[in-house]
């Protein structure tokens, strides 16, 4: 695997391979010295055009645990639009000698563009509303560790919230359905994609009728800016219709899992009590994120050898 740009580039077998590898790295991260020399002498740069402390930390931790050297580049897109093109920025960084570029950008397809221009491996760490493939993989790892290897077939997942603006939803839907899960979307119509042609999902308007049926509830963050325009009448109305309140959580099957990519808006899309309940996988998702990114860096940098 040269690059990881989007989930739809991956087959089910490839995803399974990455999940296996991730589980091996979870074991590594649990050692007393959670570091192996797999990528010694390799350089990984995180190229972030959008603020994201969490994702950057996760990638840099992953690189360091594989003994790679790391560099980081941050840029506000506003300063870049005036001057240097993305191509110039990327070529400058590549000239310093890097093996992998981890790209986060507010625009869809930015990582794809970068991959067309460089020899280094490119990992998409989130491109606009398009894709966030490592998030989808870490969600799958989290599910597999809770459910066991065969757990995806026929798994019923509902994704709730701002699907339209969500790269997590776009990559998540593809990943879950590739693995055999059945995905339902529940969202205000203003926060659904304009077209769902070709999406392997069903849409339901009534969260309360869906909840008792599902094995996994995947909640998306409601950004404050969505409340400013004509997309939503109010936060209160959103929470009353689409939030996982304590009352709604009580209607779930006892073993239903609750997932959230973070950062959570407690009291908006998820009640604090629900976020902190045993059904919630939120902290596991973050922990597994490091191992998944180790697996992705390991695979894209093509070491192919044994994990020490």
């Amino acid at each position, binding site marked *: 695997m040269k690059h990881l740009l989007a989930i739809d580039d991956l087959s089910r077998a490839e995803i399974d391979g990455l999940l296996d590898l991730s589980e091996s790295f979870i074991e590594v991260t649990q050692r007393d010295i959670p570091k192996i020399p797999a990528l010694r002498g390799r350089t990984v740069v995180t190229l972030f055009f959008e603020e994201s402390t969490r994702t950057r930390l996760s990638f840099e931790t992953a690189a360091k645990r594989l003994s790679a050297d790391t560099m980081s580049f941050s840029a506000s897109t506003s300063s870049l639009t005036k001057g240097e093109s*993305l191509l110039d920025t990327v070529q400058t960084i590549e000239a310093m000698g890097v093996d992998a570029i981890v790209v986060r950008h507010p625009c869809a*397809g930015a990582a794809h563009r970068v991959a067309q221009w460089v020899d280094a491996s490119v990992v998409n760490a989130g*491109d606009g*509303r398009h894709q966030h493939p490592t998030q989808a993989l870490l969600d799958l790892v989290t599910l597999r560790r809770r459910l066991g290897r065969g757990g995806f077939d026929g798994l019923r997942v509902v994704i709730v919230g701002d699907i339209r603006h969500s790269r997590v939803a776009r990559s998540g839907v593809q990943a879950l359905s590739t693995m055999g899960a059945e995905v339902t979307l529940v969202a205000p119509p203003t926060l659904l994609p304009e077209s769902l042609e070709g999406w392997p999902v069903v849409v339901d308007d009534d969260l309360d009728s869906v909840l008792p049926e599902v094995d996994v509830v995947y909640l998306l963050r409601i950004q404050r800016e969505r409340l400013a325009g004509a997309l939503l009448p109010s936060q209160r109305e959103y929470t009353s219709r689409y939030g996982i309140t304590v009352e709604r959580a009580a209607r779930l099957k006892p073993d239903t899992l609750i997932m959230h990519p973070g950062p959570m808006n407690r009291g908006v899309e998820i009640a604090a009590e629900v976020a902190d309940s045993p059904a919630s996988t939120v902290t596991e998702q973050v922990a597994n994120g490091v191992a998944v990114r180790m697996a992705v860096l390991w695979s894209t940098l093509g070491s192919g050898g044994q994990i020490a």
Partner: protein
Amino acid sequence: MPDDVLVKGGRVVDASGERVADVLVRDGVVIEVEAQLEPASPAARVLDAAGCVVAPGLVDLHAHLREPGDEDAETIVTGARAAALGGFTAVVAMPNTTPPLDDPAVVASVLAIGRASACDVVASGCITKGRRGEELAPMHELHQLGVRIFTDDGDCVADADVMRRALEYARSLPGAVVAQHAEDPALAQGGSMHEGAWSSRLGIQGRPAAAEAIIVARDIQLAELTGGRVHFLHLSAAPSVELVRAAKRRGLPVTAESMPHHFTLTDAECASFDPVFKVHPPLRTADDVAAIKAGLADGTIDAIATDHAPHVPQAKEQPFEQAPPGMLGLETTLALTLTELVEPGVLSLADALARLSWSPAGIAGLADHGGPIASGRPANLCVIDPALQWEVDRARLASRSRNTPYHGRKLTGRVRHTILRGEPVVVDGVAQR
């Protein structure tokens, strides 16, 4: 005294029909159109047209020549050279320059530079000051300089009252037409591609077809209300075509143009994330492409224009959503029309030339262009080899910019010679100016 030019051995096609004839040109004017003409003097320049179509020079209602303000991307001279190579003898320069064409002095300077270039450069004028959509530009002063097409192109005149007043005021300016970039900004703003299955999948905010159709519908009502002439720039969406068709059926003073990219490409191209496919209005669906073709075939859409929109390379070396919209068109429009419309039988050759020459000449009020090719008429001609096969190579375009979405595409039909007021400005595919 320039020498005579004799265009020999071609098939002359204009609005009056077609015949095999040679065309003799003297002092910028067609002298004779007859079979088997011989040069009157040994100094006459003979241009071989064997196997070729001799047509009135093409007229582009819509080119961004970028001067003044963005001469790195294109200048009037380079844009006009690209136009001549594409068979055009007249191009209408769009007003979204820096400063914009809302001021007589700026328009006069564009016209002055244009006079020394390889095709006639016809300035459009802004509808509103600064293209801000608020106050009318000095339309009469611009009209006195020869401006006939008024447009804020690049931006829609969004305010219905401003559009109404522009249409009313233009009634007092003979030949004036108000040309609308029909995209409701409230619906289109922030969008980078057609809103639909592809935008939803790619996570790119869309510009819905309704943004165009809403303004088309509104402005048809305003044309009816005011009696002013409205022209719709770059029609791209199926519902808009139907609205214009219905308006014409009712006899309203409405015309429309479409671009090759809207009858040859779809929004699926955007999946490459290459901003060379970003344009406003955006590439739409196969159904829209079919509707544009049908509109061109039945005359609902009067003209094929280029929307030639050069950008320096670094402007497109950005993510799709950050890159500016627009693509080159002057050097590929004729060949795309021949390859994608004439060859498959969507348009006859004569109808294609109507959409590219005499119909747009009529809309812009350019009496010297669009034929007919007859004794006494200004010699603005293009000689087309309809069978020549070639491959678009962005490195070999005459434009200063390289942002063609057709790089590598094989096309059939190319301009062999272009004659501007009797002067061969393109000979055997080579620009002479």
